[in-house]
């Protein structure tokens, strides 16, 4: 069964392997380079040299070259989907559409044991490949101190690519492809369905579930003009995911922008009158209201989202068995 599964999927696995190898080379190459730069920056700071901006600039540049590279990001976003489309959707559908299930399910292994092994043998390499990828990404982030020096490494934009959820996405996509192929009995429509459903689920989760895994923190701070710096407690912590930032009045109702602008005009180039500005703000009771998820919830959120996708994958696994038993064999 190991031999047969390899024989049937070797082309897809080799293509996946090649992609993984390319990503590995890119990550290793840039990771080594940026860790050298990070080391230089550390030395500069430790020696208390006057100007470390050149060293900092070159490190930020290293980091952003990868973190903001659209091809890199897109390929990491697409990799789980491709797994589902090119390995999952074909796995069972090809047997059903070519009629070979009648041959392979009447050798020594009954269909249910065949299915366990087949799915297990597909899950293993997918788990390995994405596990390695996640390991490499984590190494890359830590070796270059990317969270500290990479300008674009916020909670929000490293969540989908640089976190462990990529493993769960891949398993979900694989099982989605397998189930779609089983239910539709055709590999090409199954690929299309995998594509559409995977993207739809991802978008729904990102927009409607992820912001509320835990109740967000609400913080209001003053809009009053002050020459002393604001205390740390009144600021949103660094690396947080800001869900909304609105101006509200005394009753907590959102304020239309032009009302705020009326006050802000008092600070403009025409009349730099901070007292009048502060009076204007106080009169309306205007304040800033932030709704955010603190940055230290990153790994907790990763775990919650991974759990959701793994649960969906398990559901699709069970559904595939049910479908074959009750819709194909009709016991």
């Amino acid at each position, binding site marked *: 069964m190991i031999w047969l599964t390899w024989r*049937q999927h070797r082309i897809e696995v080799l293509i996946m392997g090649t992609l993984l190898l390319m990503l590995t080379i890119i990550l290793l190459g840039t990771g080594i380079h940026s860790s050298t730069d990070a080391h230089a920056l550390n030395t500069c700071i430790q020696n208390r040299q006057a100007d470390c901006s050149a060293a900092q600039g070159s490190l930020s540049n290293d980091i952003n070259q990868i973190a903001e590279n659209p091809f890199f990001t897109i390929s990491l976003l697409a990799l789980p989907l491709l797994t589902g489309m090119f390995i999952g959707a074909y796995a069972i559908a090809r047997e059903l559409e070519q009629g*070979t299930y*009648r041959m392979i399910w009447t050798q020594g292994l009954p269909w249910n044991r065949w299915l366990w092994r087949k799915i297990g043998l597909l899950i293993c390499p997918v788990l390995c490949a994405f596990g390695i990828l996640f390991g490499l990404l984590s190494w890359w982030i830590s070796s270059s101190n990317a969270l500290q020096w990479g300008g674009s490494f916020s909670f929000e934009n490293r969540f989908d690519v640089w976190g462990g959820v990529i493993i769960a996405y891949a398993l979900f996509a694989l099982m989605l492809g397998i189930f779609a192929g089983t239910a539709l009995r055709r590999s090409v429509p199954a690929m299309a369905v995998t594509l559409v459903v995977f993207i739809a689920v991802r978008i729904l989760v990102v927009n409607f579930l992820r912001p509320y895994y835990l109740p967000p923190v609400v913080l209001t701070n003053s809009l009053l003009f002050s020459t002393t710096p604001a205390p740390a407690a009144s600021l949103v912590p660094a690396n947080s995911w800001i869900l909304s930032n609105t101006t509200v009045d005394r009753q907590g109702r959102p304020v239309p922008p032009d009302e705020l602008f009326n006050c802000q005009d008092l600070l403009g180039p025409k009349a730099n009158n901070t007292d009048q500005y502060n009076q204007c703000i106080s009169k309306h009771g205007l304040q800033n209201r932030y709704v955010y998820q603190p940055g230290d919830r990153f790994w907790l959120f990763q775990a919650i989202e991974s759990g959701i996708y793994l649960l969906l994958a398990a559901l699709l696994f069970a559904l595939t068995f049910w479908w074959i038993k009750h819709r194909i*064999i*009709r016991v």
Partner: protein
Amino acid sequence: MIQALETERLGKRYGRKWALRDCTFKVPVGCITGLVGPNGAGKTTLLHLAVGLQGPTTGMVNVFGYNPSRQTGQVLAKVGFVAQEHPLYKTLRVEEMLTVGRKLNATWDQDLALRRLKQLGIPLRQRIGKLSGGQQAQVALVMTLAKRPEMLLLDEPTASLDPLARREFQQTLLDAVMEDGLSVIVSSHIVTDLERFCDHLVILSASRVQVVDTVEHLLRSHKLLIGPRDRAQTRTSAYTVVTASETGRQCTLLVQTHAPLLDPAWEVRDVSLEEIILAYLSQSNANMTTLEEKKLGVAQ
């Protein structure tokens, strides 16, 4: 005594349509049984039920005493199945296909497989898809023989083959059966195929079993009677009319006899297996038609 295949009131329904209904018969061990009927009669459904590719809607089916749905492993260990159009992995080489069989079956006789393929002149390095239809059918048959089954179930194995390939396939099959004393159930809509090597016959039509009998008894008990038309009306217990046709004043009856025919007005002839099968198939068609007419009548 354990039967190779035993069904009792076996039925299979797809949606609202019955593919097989009320099917009860036994196939003893060591027989070569032909399963004959027009396309859509339920032959494939019956064979799929016997290997656990389908589960029955009603009734039961046993293969060597095992239930194919619940004891699929035990059934598969004893049965070699060649599905319709003998599906194989077209991109694999012949030797790789044998590896699949070796890895997935508890018993596997690689020597037998290699010997038979060599006899047939099928190159091991060739991809399955590049072989002719006849060769592919042979590879599929060799695959099932190499698992050393006690029974072969073959679903229209020769339907897509040319006459020469058909004859070669049957030869391989007969050789194997002679060597190992296998039970065989082979479905076909080509009657001459069955006449050559079957000893039992199951005639399926319109989702139902019409006849289950040995070929020998079928041939012995069926006669063609030719005689004057007016005599056709007189019923006797000596025979049951299967089909009747009339030309002018003459009448031709295909009958199943229960006792010697003594009436000198009838000319009695032997009939071929093909004629008997066709008579039963057209009879069940006629019954279907009258049934449809009755339904229409009720509706009106």
